[in-house]
């Protein structure tokens, strides 16, 4: 079958519920306080689990003595590495022990854990565990960690299991180079050159619900694990591997999740919780404290980025050279980094000559992983700040400069990637129109930044499957491994089911996510849930619709050709007056077939591969096609107080190509939230560390935006449909947070003429920059 499977393609159809903003699934329960989050589950004999963590950033473990703790009344289990197989776990690279056995690599590394009848007893037990350490030399500066002679954090790195290829020299876990054209020969063609260095900080996801896990063993030894995750199957395989358990002994349930932002997709303390529950033969709950959240979860990497960019007087980019170094802390939970992805990190532009290298380097800092746009916000800050300066040197407006260099339909990115239906130019044009009427007063300025983000290319089609069941009364259950983490997947997936089956949205309910009951789902996230899971669910619903058509053909005495499903009825092809209700067919199925109408859908990897490979071949030798890639442009107006350095955000415009907004209210909600999350990154948030020790401990010193920072974001939604996403959808959740920091930095420059290169853009840094500029030019900053 050479012809691709048609259901994936967007068809121009009249839509009923897709594109509307129906009331989100599950909201009544959330508003009533009835929705169950992990922490809301309990058992009469529930134990409290606590983790003993290293306070040394790098130390060899000489011995662990738990005898005293075990004797304490009320203690039901104490565990150390002696209770685990010595295997390392991790998503892309298995670099992390569940409980350290030979050495600890950061201040916060788990060494032991206890389960006790209450928190007080558990705390007392932790205090009784004695760990003998030999402190080792440590390294905290990422560039020092790359130098020869630096203390090595993972001596056996080259033997670690990984899904990709590791670089593995010294502390450098990964080195990826993007090389296109000939940078060295290109500088001569440039009329302007600009070089600079940018730095970004560590930030935490800041979900209000901390990580929690509750493991409950039954008498047969099977464990049910409730946990704060958006990837129940990842947790199951991770815990099974960490503890050497068969998967049949583990059932992972992801109930309501209180915010994720990339941080709840991987194994964290769940294996410890399961281990304690097994040893105690009693249910155990672990709830991370805020301090543990800020110390021992996988946060966004700090980075250093050096850039040199050259352009011609006509505004064309000629060459980009540079590197980015990510401090990945003691353990790295990020997925691999391909040259194609690096290309995306450099923005939605065509740059003929590029040489850009990314390094991920271990240090003895706290561990790092995914957070809303993994790997993206750091280079986005650098590149978008940098391009602003290049545009200024050329005397071209930032919007016009980006327009001259950005992707059009059929254009290839630096590495030859063809982006299907790129919306970037349209977002720039609309931003330009918006800015045409923009005003600014003294010490006020406008800043612009753009982004491109991952869609789906051949390598990124991760497994996904779902089932649809039509009850005998015609209502529908969608069974999916995708949990609801706040991003609205259950709502959007229900809309897709309702649309395909022609049933009311209210008739669809969602069951998920439970590894014993739902089809396999990799996770929600990557701004690809709507695209990837949405397609899977669409295929499941279409398959159920086929069955409805067959049954309708029997009932109506017509052929199934040309049938349609709408308004709760199946209509015969060519004779729309002949129809039968889905309710009737659903009951009829049970009688005539002995089963409800039920169908599954799955990611059709081969077919997708064929599509994309076919499209890629049509575009030349590099042959990579990216579909569903979201792009956008944001503009922000700030006011800088020259006395205090305080930056106030006055207006915000966010224009994003989302392919098709399946749920407009949800898209706007994602943009609102992403922009304010970006504000925190830009202006105030930092998980400060000193010599590997985390200096912040909660929301008081880790400064996230509050209600006082609420922003009326003007959203403008562009819809350039993706080719293979359900109804043309692309993603939005991550993209909308990427350009915030550079847009603000650019606005500060526009306001007061100082370039800030280091996040967060705190009043102290603004003030220092103003003073420096003042002393350089011999004047004080103008009021």
């Amino acid at each position, binding site marked *: 079958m050479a012809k691709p499977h048609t259901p994936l393609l967007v068809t121009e159809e009249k839509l009923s519920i897709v594109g509307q903003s129906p009331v989100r699934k599950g909201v009544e329960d959330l508003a009533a306080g009835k929705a169950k989050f992990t922490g*809301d589950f*309990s058992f009469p004999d529930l134990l409290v689990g606590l983790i003993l963590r290293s306070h040394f950033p790098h130390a060899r473990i000489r011995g662990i003595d738990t005898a005293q703790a075990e004797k304490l009344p009320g203690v039901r289990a104490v565990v150390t590495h002696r209770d685990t197989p010595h295997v390392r776990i991790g998503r892309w690279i298995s670099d992390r022990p569940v409980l350290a056995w030979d050495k600890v690599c950061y201040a916060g590394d788990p060494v032991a854990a206890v389960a006790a009848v209450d928190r007080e007893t558990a705390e007392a037990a932790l205090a009784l565990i004695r760990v003998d350490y030999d402190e080792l030399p440590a390294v905290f500066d990422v560039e020092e960690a790359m130098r020869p002679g630096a203390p090595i954090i993972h001596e056996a790195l080259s033997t670690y299991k990984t899904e990709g290829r590791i670089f593995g020299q010294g502390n450098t876990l990964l080195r990826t180079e993007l090389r296109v054209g000939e940078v060295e020969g290109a500088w001569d063609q440039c009329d302007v050159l600009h070089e600079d260095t940018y730095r970004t900080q560590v930030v935490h996801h*800041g979900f209000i619900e901390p990580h929690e896990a509750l493991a409950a063993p039954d008498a047969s030894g099977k464990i049910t694990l409730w946990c704060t995750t958006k990837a129940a199957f990842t947790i199951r395989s991770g815990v099974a591997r960490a503890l050497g358990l068969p998967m049949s002994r583990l059932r992972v349930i992801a109930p309501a999740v209180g915010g994720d932002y990339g941080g709840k997709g991987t194994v964290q303390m769940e294996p410890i919780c399961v281990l304690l529950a097994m040893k105690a033969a009693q249910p155990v709950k672990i*709830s991370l404290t805020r301090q543990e959240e800020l110390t021992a979860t996988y946060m966004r990497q700090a980075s250093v980025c050096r850039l040199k960019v050259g352009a011609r007087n006509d505004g064309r980019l000629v060459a980009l050279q540079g590197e980015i170094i990510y401090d990945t802390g003691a353990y790295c939970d990020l997925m691999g980094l391909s040259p194609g992805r690096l290309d995306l990190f450099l923005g939605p532009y065509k740059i003929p000559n590029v040489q850009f290298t990314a390094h991920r380097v271990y240090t003895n800092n706290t561990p790092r992983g995914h957070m809303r746009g993994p790997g993206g916000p750091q280079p986005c800050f650098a590149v978008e700040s940098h391009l602003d300066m290049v545009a200024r040197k050329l005397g071209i407006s930032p919007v016009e400069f980006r327009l001259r260099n950005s992707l059009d339909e059929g254009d290839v990115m630096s590495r030859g990637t063809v982006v299907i239906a790129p919306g970037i130019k349209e977002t720039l044009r609309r931003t330009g129109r918006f800015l045409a009427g923009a005003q600014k007063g003294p010490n006020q300025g406008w800043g612009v930044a753009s982004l491109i983000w991952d869609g789906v290319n051949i390598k990124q089609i991760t497994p996904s499957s779902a089932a649809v069941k039509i009850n005998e009364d015609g209502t529908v259950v969608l069974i999916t491994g995708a949990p609801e983490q706040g991003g609205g997947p259950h709502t959007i997936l229900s809309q897709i089911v309702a649309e395909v089956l022609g049933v009311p949205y209210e008739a669809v309910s969602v069951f998920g996510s439970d590894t014993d009951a739902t089809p396999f789902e990799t996770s929600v996230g990557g701004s690809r849930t709507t695209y990837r899971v949405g397609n899977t669910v669409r295929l499941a619903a279409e398959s159920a619709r086929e069955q409805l058509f067959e049954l309708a053909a029997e009932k109506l005495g017509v052929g199934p050709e040309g049938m349609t499903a709408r308004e709760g009825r199946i209509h015969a092809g060519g004779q729309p007056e002949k129809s039968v209700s889905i309710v009737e067919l659903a009951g009829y199925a049970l009688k005539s077939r002995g089963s409800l109408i039920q169908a599954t859908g799955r990611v059709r990897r081969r077919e997708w591969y064929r599509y994309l490979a076919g499209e890629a071949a049509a575009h030349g030798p590099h042959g990579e096609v990216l579909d569903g890639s979201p792009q956008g442009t944001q503009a922000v107006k700030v006011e800088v107080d020259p006395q205090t350095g305080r930056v106030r955000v006055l207006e915000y415009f966010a224009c994003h190509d989302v392919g098709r907004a399946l749920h407009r209210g*949800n898209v706007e909600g994602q943009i609102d939230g992403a922009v304010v999350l970006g504000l925190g990154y830009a202006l105030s948030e930092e998980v400060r560390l000193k010599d590997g020790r985390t200096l912040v401990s909660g929301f008081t010193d880790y400064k996230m935006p509050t*209600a006082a920072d*609420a922003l009326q974001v003007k959203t403008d939604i562009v819809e350039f449909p993706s080719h293979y996403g359900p109804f043309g959808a692309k993603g939005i959740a991550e993209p909308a947070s990427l350009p915030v920091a550079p847009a603000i930095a650019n606005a500060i420059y526009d306001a007061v003429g100082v370039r800030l290169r280091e996040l967060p853009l705190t009043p102290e840094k603004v003030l220092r920059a103003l003073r420096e500029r003042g002393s350089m030019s011999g004047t004080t900053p103008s009021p």
Partner: protein
Amino acid sequence: MKMPLQFRVNGEDYEVYVEPWKTLLEVLRDELELTGTKAGCLAGECGTCTVIVDGKAVKSCLMLAPQAAGREIMTVEGLAQGGKLHPLQQAFIDHFAFQCGFCTPGMLMSSKALLDENPHPTADDVKEGLYGNFCRCTGYVKILEAVLAAGAKPRG
């Protein structure tokens, strides 16, 4: 060590035996199994544990059980009446004022306390009233809209 304490929560009377150092939050969640009130930080910083005690918004993780005993307590479970959501809850739904919903119980209770005291607040009043409640999902703007909308309605 444990002591008997009487609570009046959402109009119902309860008696529990707890250690005097337990917080109101622990009593609500662990003893009374009213898990609508959430625990986000246990340090008075996030606001998701907010309940109303004698008409005032209180962070229940900071109030010791004996301090709360005998007083009139209202939690998110007490908002809906006769199976019908409270207008504030409905306003939150209508205005997409939450995504994950983990901050919502605290937001609702802070908002309720605010509106009870100041039935027609301005945007600045609401921002101030919700200052102690973090939300990481929504960027707050739709929460403000919801509270303002609920405040604009004639209230019975």
